[in-house]
């Protein structure tokens, strides 16, 4: 039986017939690359010269003293080129695109992070590039749209549906079913039809491989817990993959938005609003109603604002290997503020979910334990969103003046 990427019944490939042949090719090229030791070398070489790999593991001494519990380490995916772990997946898929001989890439983006990363990859490898982005996210993440366009990508605002990440994914699929001969769809997270969840997790596993070596070097033992935020699940799958076989508690943190009982959140694995379904080509937990229509989601972090979740994480939910929690918008903004003041680090709002959950728990642990928080991206590129979240008065004033000048 052909592997259709099922784990505990999650995954699969629910494809329109027109795409079946394209997925067979992708699967074949991915398998060949994965089985070729030279490929991983080519990949790590690229990531150490074009991006900033290995990214450091930073000991957060001040936060550790502040909470008085486990020693806190931070895996610095923010130091990748373009400021997030998204580069890992994008550059890996870029190498596969070269192997397939395609000349155009398309991608969806929520926070804009994956779109920017894809646009840099396309520029570097000489591919044409179209990015689909929900209209709401275009508004929220305008600076990223600016960069994508400067990098030579065409950005298409998606006005259908809820006008956020899931709708951008649908539009990317609609483009792809017409253009698969020339075009590869660079899906940005560990979701979608098989082999995407496995393929994206494979490229992101570079985070876990490094983090494992780095913590052993520093602590000479495994951490007690590893925290990662969960949007689609790619940074979480990436860092968790280094610790799956070890007695390490893995904690995935979803967007609690305005609270799990508010109906305004994006928590698929720890809220009662989600149930198993099949959409966007795969089977997992979705935020949907009893008819199977997808619900609106909410998070202060655009990159976590998504109805589905990696089938691989749904599997880890089912078998208990990963514990899932949710952090609210409010908790996230507080965790971000604390991290900036105490460590001089600026996590992305997405990543700050992992920090928020860790901060709730580290005091329970003893001083000779260690935890790792995955800082999946940097927040300084989200200055508009973060300044809004902080309701910074001087910033508002600056924007007002800037707008007046632009109009003048």
């Amino acid at each position, binding site marked *: 039986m052909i592997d259709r990427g099922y784990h505990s019944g999650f995954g*699969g490939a629910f494809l329109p*017939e*027109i795409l079946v042949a394209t997925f067979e090719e992708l699967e074949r090229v991915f398998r060949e690359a994965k089985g070729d030791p030279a490929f991983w070398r080519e990949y790590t070489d690229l990531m150490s010269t074009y991006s900033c790999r290995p990214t450091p593991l930073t000991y957060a001494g001040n936060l550790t003293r502040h909470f008085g519990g486990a020693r806190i380490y931070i895996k610095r995916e923010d130091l990748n080129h373009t400021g997030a772990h998204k580069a890992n997946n994008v550059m890996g898929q870029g190498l596969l695109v070269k192997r397939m001989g395609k000349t155009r890439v398309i991608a969806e983006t929520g926070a804009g992070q994956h779109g920017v990363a894809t646009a840099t990859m396309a520029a570097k490898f000489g591919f044409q590039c179209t990015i689909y982005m929900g209209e709401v996210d275009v508004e929220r993440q305008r600076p990223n749209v600016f960069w994508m366009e400067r990098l030579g990508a065409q950005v298409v605002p998606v006005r*259908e549906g809820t006008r956020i990440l899931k709708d951008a994914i649908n539009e990317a699929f*609609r483009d792809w079913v017409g253009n698969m001969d020339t075009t590869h769809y660079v899906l940005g997270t560990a979701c979608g039809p098989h082999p995407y969840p496995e393929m994206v997790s494979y490229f992101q596993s570079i985070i876990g491989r490094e983090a494992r070596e780095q913590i052993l070097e520093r602590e000479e033992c495994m951490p007690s817990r590893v925290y990662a935020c969960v949007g689609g699940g790619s940074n979480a799958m990436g860092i968790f993959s280094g610790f799956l076989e070890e007695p390490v508690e893995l904690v995935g943190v979803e967007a609690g938005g305005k609270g799990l009982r508010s109906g305004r959140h994006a928590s698929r694995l720890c809220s009662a609003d989600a149930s198993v379904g*099949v959409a966007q080509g795969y089977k997992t937990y979705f935020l949907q109603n009893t*008819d199977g229509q997808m619900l609106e989601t909410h998070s202060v972090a655009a990159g976590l604002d998504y109805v589905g979740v990696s089938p691989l994480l749904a599997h880890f939910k089912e078998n208990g290997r990963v514990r899932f929690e949710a952090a609210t918008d409010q908790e996230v903004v507080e965790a971000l503020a604390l991290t900036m003041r105490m460590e001089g680090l600026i996590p992305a709002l997405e990543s700050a979910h992992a920090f928020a959950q860790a901060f709730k728990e580290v005091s329970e642990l003893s001083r000779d334990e260690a935890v790792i928080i995955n800082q999946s991206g940097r927040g300084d590129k989200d200055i508009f969103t973060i300044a809004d979240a902080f309701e910074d008065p001087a910033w508002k004033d600056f924007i007002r003046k800037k707008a007046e000048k632009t109009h003048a």
Partner: protein
Amino acid sequence: MLEAYVKERRKERDILLMTHIVLGYPSFEESHNLVKTMVEAGVDLMELQIPFSEPIADGPVILHANQQALAAGATVKQCMDFAGDVARSYPIPFLFMSYYNILFKYGVERFAEEMNRRGLKGAIVPDLPPEEANGYLRAMERFGLDPVFIFSPTTPDTRMGEIAAVGRGFIYCVARKGVTGLDTHFTRQLEEYLARCRRATSLPLALGFGVKNRTDIDFLRGKADIAIIGTQTIRLMDEGGIDAVRAFIEGLR
């Protein structure tokens, strides 16, 4: 069952017409008027789409219709009731078309049972390839319903054979790459593709995606058994209302 119906009907008509509507768009009342009009204008089969929030195989027109129907509050229960109603009232076969999540959430077995009880004849589920369809195939068989599967121009011959082995009723041949509602070129290439489909199965062939006028249908005579009209009637309904739809369909024969 559908296969016998199509073959029988083809003795009198050189090509059959299947139309597609989105249930609840623009309203259930209008959906009913559309069915009545289409049946009176001589349509041979109808595809009733249960709206879904993520219709990835559909282009802008049908996507919009899905969203409007849902925004107006269309539910699966209403779609079931509606389908039962028209199946009882009109003498042609009706099929459901929807995305798999709608069936999955309803319970595939229960969905098939309901379809049978309401007098529907088959279903088209564009995001359910045969590899994922075991439970669906069992349920459809059990309730005497036809699971219609899809061929596309990118489907290799061997796979066409595998699909035809599980498909019932007829094969839905997608005319080209891309989503619904874009233009299709009715050319030599399409003719060759249909000939390839013909060699792969003895099931009737229905051709859909981009069929929009009499010329297209004339092209298909002798090459396909059924012409499927989807987006074009929705467009006409939006622009000229039900009378435009009636005139259009009457003009196709």
